[in-house]
């Protein structure tokens, strides 16, 4: 079991983390390159920066959006995202691993805060899953990945909480820890190739939309030529 843990913590972690980082970098670069290409072709190169920034920030601090629609689901989603982002990054035990591995560290969350955030993330992930399953509109739109993601994200949080706070036998601890690491690594690997890529792309949504509306000039002629419709009546 120790060897499995070592393997999961060592090479497998490096591989999955690398896949995640390179995968996210890929989608980010593709996105920005696409936007640059579009901007280069645009007939009008002025962009409404004030509007883009304002609309982007609205969703980074969505406080005034909460009560506008589906307040329960919205609150669950916001609190879920807070825990989901803060706990893995700011957990003392995780930072210690980074310090021992590559020698870098940063301030950690106090343990009680991290524990409560873990519990809230678990609760709100379940709430989101239930909310999606029972909402007429969400369930109509949902794909398989939309149901599986909250459940998959639950795994490292539940196992992490068990390992950190519950007195379990050594072998149970090891199995739980292995599940904790492997599930996190599965998340890392899947992340850039699924909707979770929004974690890096979201800040560019408004920008990309505005660039897409900046059409290239003189496309009437080009589209007509390609479709063999030159001179065709309206």
């Amino acid at each position, binding site marked *: 079991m120790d060897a499995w843990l070592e393997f999961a913590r060592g090479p497998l972690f490096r591989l999955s983390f690398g896949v995640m980082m390179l995968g996210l970098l890929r*989608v980010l670069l*593709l*996105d920005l390159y*696409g*936007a640059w*290409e*579009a901007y280069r*072709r*645009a*007939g*009008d*190169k*002025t962009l*409404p920066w004030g*509007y883009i920034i304002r*609309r*982007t920030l609205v*969703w980074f601090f969505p406080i005034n*959006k909460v009560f*506008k*629609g*589906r307040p329960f*689901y*919205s609150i669950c*989603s916001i609190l879920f995202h807070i825990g989901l982002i803060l706990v893995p990054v700011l957990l003392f035990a995780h930072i210690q691993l980074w310090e021992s591995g590559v020698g870098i560290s940063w301030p950690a969350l106090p343990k009680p805060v991290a524990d409560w955030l873990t519990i809230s993330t678990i609760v709100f992930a379940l709430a989101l899953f239930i909310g999606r399953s029972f*909402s*007429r*509109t*969400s369930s*109509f*739109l*949902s*794909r398989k990945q*939309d149901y599986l993601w909250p459940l998959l994200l639950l795994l490292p949080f539940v196992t992490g909480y068990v390992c950190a706070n519950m007195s379990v036998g050594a072998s149970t601890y090891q199995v739980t820890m292995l599940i904790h690491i492997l599930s996190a690594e599965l998340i890392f690997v899947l992340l850039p190739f699924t*909707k979770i*890529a*929004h974690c890096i*792309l*979201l800040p*560019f*949504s*408004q920008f*990309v*939309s505005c*660039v*897409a*509306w*900046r*059409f*290239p*000039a*003189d*496309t*009437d002629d*080009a*589209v*007509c030529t*390609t*479709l063999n419709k030159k001179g065709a009546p*309206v």
Partner: protein
Amino acid sequence: MRTNQISAEQREKAFVSARKPEVMEKQKLDVRYHVEDFDVNDRPRRFLEAFAAILKHSNYRVALDHFIRVSAKCSRCATTCQVYQATGDPKDIPCYRSELLLSVYRRHFTMGGMLRGRVAGTGHLTDEKVQEMADSFYDCTACRRCNHECPSGIDHGLITHLGRYILSEIGIAPRALVVSTREQLEGASGNTSAIPVPALIDTLEFLSEDMLEEKHVNIAFPLDVEGSEFVFFPAVSDFLMEAETLMGIAAVFTATGDSWTTGTGYFDGINYGLFYSDRILERVVKKIDNETRRLKGKKVLIGECGHASRSAKQFLPIYCGGDKALPVINIMEYTHKVWKEGRLKLDPNVITEKVAYHDPCNIARQGWIIDKPRELLKAFCKDYVELTPNGEDAVCCGGGGGTVSIDEIRPYRTMVGGKVKADQIRESGCKILVAPCANCKKQLKELVEDQKIDCEVAGLHDLIYKAIIFDDSLKVSPDEKQTGEEE
């Protein structure tokens, strides 16, 4: 608990189709709007060819790539879509509508989709899916309100716009829009309402006579005056249906003395290209540019019309010279400016009824003109109220995206599309609803009639015409008037 949903009985009336079953069968197209006959063979292939050609010569690809990666399917847009709120049909959720096209893009235009499709042998575009898109994209009023509620920032309005463009390339577009555009681009009159120039001149002279009678001021519509500050393009239908709006605009220019003109070479602000085809959009925008340059005008002035304003403001720089393009302003911006400068006086005792302002989506959604008309109205209307929500979050009249011009879907527009708006008007208790947009005005007039709401719909300049105070120096004495008439 959704309170806006229509009853089963209303649904039956709203979704009634004016189309003959044999036409639907012949065209293999079960939609409510009339479509000119088109080649029904091989629709999916031709759809994909058109999609590919458009992607090649446009900037849509970056948005589609982005949207397929970030879409979280949270369904928050359902809370804001007035069509979904009225029908309660999940197929009207904006995200579902967008997915119709996004899934085609994912399957046929991305590497992953093509590989998955090949391996599984499924997911390719079918005739049924083309049919579903043709139905769905014209159920949307393209108000883009859902864009504001999407946490992922997906612009469903852009996707609907693109979907309609592709459909139009295979012959699926509302006949009402196509026929008007054909007249505008290829017809003898050169405008969507088919008004010949002599009829335009007659109409304007008649309006001037009317205004002289009512206001005792010579209020003219200058025609073809070269070198004017503004070249004016109203929604051409205003010449037939909204004379009072035009009278108000002419009155403002008479009061200020600024130079403006209407070109007899081209005088139509309407651009249905914004609703169904970028190629048409480009051609119409270029006509506006050509006419303004022919008259050596300095600025393009668009009348009270939302889509005409946005299509000129946003797309004139794109198609006609980027930062060297002619400036575009909406008439409300001009009127507000001259009022602020003290060059326009309005009588605060004329309009006593309760007045509310409706924000046209194409003017307000991106925050372009929101406060200016309100400041004007509050300055001379005794009893002004707001519709809630308003401004950037304003609810669509229900006839946006060109649907108002499709007369055969009026029951759908006034019972489904405009349901939330109707409730909003009722709640405000306003007796005059100011809608500075030709499309909104037509839709709202039909809406208050069909929904039996006691409210008059008017343009901003209709009210300004009533309240405007002319300088005494402009007044014509009865003797002069008499002489003028004899001449």
